[in-house]
């Protein structure tokens, strides 16, 4: 399987090893939430940025999921937009069907979330079974194909309800012979799912992020997490000490897909209509999320989130500067890359950290 070269990438990176570091990340998320809420209340946040709050949570979530796969399991996936897509459509479908029977918005969202997460996990599991047993670059290729296939399948999937009950068709909507008067579309092919209840909000997004962070952090710092990282670091040695490789790979990949699915559910309920297009669920998106993970530092969840937030904000903030927008965007990408990975910058940051530590111990003494 595609081993991401962690040796090279993590040299000098501390990641988030200490439990204090993890705590700081959680605290940071809560602090950002508090500050943003305050700014929104006092009217300091433009409606443009407000509209980006939920998407930023979505991408952070998916990036956390992908980082589990790439950073801790050491397997490259180019299909996480596919799992997000599965989560989005399953969640939106469920909330649309159950909207009349469940009155409470939060409960409705939770049910949709569970369904979306479960379905994404199922897909992750099914994809992983054949692929993770093999060696080589199969996972990257198959996940890439999976994402595209899912997107295309949804574009030709029709499910509707009329006075005669539920109907479903594949690629040919006419074959359902719907009673036009009473038709309610649940999934209308390339037109996707419309009139989705607006159940997502920034608070729910932050709660989901915190939950995902806690799950991944606790997993990584446990018996199973050590096994996962052992498999990443040296598969042959991991086998030699009796670790069940396939089992842990399946589990981790499934969890990673499930987290991406949660991101999808959040995404869908922030829109009134969700469609599967190349920009939102295509491989471009998968690669964008991989960019968040790599830029933020493989194995660093905090970094993934920061990268996701910055790179989501940037194009919108720069919207006024039309011609220079993509130029600045690329420069920031390169700058982040250098800041995170250049040996000199790593050494410099280490020095700073050491200095800071020394000062602190002096103060404490």
């Amino acid at each position, binding site marked *: 399987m595609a081993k991401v070269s962690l040796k090279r990438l993590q040299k000098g990176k501390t990641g988030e090893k200490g439990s204090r570091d993890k705590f700081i990340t959680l605290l940071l998320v809560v602090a950002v939430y508090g500050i943003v809420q305050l700014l929104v209340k006092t009217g300091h946040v433009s409606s443009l940025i407000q509209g980006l709050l939920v998407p930023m949570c979505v991408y952070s979530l998916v990036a956390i999921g992908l980082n589990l796969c790439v950073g801790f399991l050491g397997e490259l996936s180019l299909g996480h937009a596919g799992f997000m897509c599965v989560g989005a459509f399953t969640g939106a479908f469920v909330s649309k069907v159950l909207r009349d029977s469940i009155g409470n918005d939060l409960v409705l969202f939770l049910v949709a979330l569970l369904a979306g997460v479960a379905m994404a996990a199922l897909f992750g599991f099914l994809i992983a079974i054949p692929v993770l047993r093999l060696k080589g670059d199969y996972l990257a290729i198959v996940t890439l194909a999976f994402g595209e296939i899912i997107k295309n399948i949804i574009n030709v999937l029709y499910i509707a309800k009329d006075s005669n009950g539920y109907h479903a068709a594949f690629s040919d909507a006419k074959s359902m012979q719907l009673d036009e008067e009473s038709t309610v579309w649940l999934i209308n092919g390339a037109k996707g799912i419309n009139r989705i209840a607006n159940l997502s909000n920034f608070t729910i997004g932050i709660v989901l992020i915190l939950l995902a962070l806690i799950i991944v952090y606790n997993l990584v710092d446990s*018996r199973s997490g050590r096994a996962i990282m052992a498999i990443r*670091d040296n598969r042959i040695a991991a086998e*030699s*000490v*009796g670790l069940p490789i396939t089992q842990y790979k399946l589990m981790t990949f499934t969890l990673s897909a499930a987290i991406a699915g949660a991101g999808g559910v959040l995404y869908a309920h922030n829109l009134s209509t969700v469609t599967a297009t190349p920009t939102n669920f295509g491989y471009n998106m998968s690669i964008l999320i991989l960019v968040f993970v790599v830029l933020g530092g493989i194995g660093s969840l905090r970094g993934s989130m920061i990268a996701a937030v910055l790179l989501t904000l940037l194009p919108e903030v720069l919207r006024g500067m039309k011609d220079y927008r993509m130029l600045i965007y690329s420069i920031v990408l390169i700058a982040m890359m250098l800041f995170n990975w250049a040996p000199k910058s790593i050494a410099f940051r280490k020095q700073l950290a050491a200095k800071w530590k020394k000062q602190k111990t002096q103060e404490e003494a």
Partner: protein
Amino acid sequence: MALLEVHDIGISFGGLRAVDDFQISIEKGQLYGLIGPNGAGKTTVFNILTGVYTPDKGTILLDGQNITGKNTMEINRAGIARTFQNIRLFHLLSVLDNVKIGLHNQMQYSTLTGVLRLPRYYQVEKEMNERAMELLHVFELDDVADYQATNLPYGKQRKLEIARAMATNPKLLLLDEPAAGMNPNETKELMETIHFVREKFDMTILLIEHDMKLVSGICEQLTVLNFGQILCQGKTADVLHDPEVIKAYLGE
């Protein structure tokens, strides 16, 4: 019945008969040496014993249990642990974690227990830490427990590999050239450690070594491999005086 009984195993790679008609019988508590020139097939024997390769003939019995054809994980659980000629540590993890991974099957709790941080998590983790530190102490690695494995000096990495293997609580320990790349001082110290491990844990050890002098010092039995075949087998003193062995080694 010996702890390890190997009958007539063999394997080919393409046209090369890497190991043929290999047999060995190791009694419990023995320190046994497997020697031979470069490419003789020593590591291949280890790979067959640990299920990395499946032999095309022969049987392997560990403690009376037939383990032929089992995979590496099952064989480790059956009681064989090993180290590697080119060190294979979990290099990004700490020294302590490397040993704790060795304890994976010895001390257990479920993934959910870990994620939910149930009381059992804290209890088992504490036991694991204690047990791992004990082992690290034996190998004089307790003071570097929180180092990243990759940052250890070479000699300590080799020791850590042995500690990790010991953590799986094996019946038989296979060491593939543990002294490779060490200076004479480190080598001497390592041999003392191996000797100590054997005494303290009453461990049965099969040791691959290149250097005749080194093995003759600590092993009581030897098997000499040459071109995949057994050249000579028996008590160390007898093997060392075998004319065939002398010829093979002087002919190098």
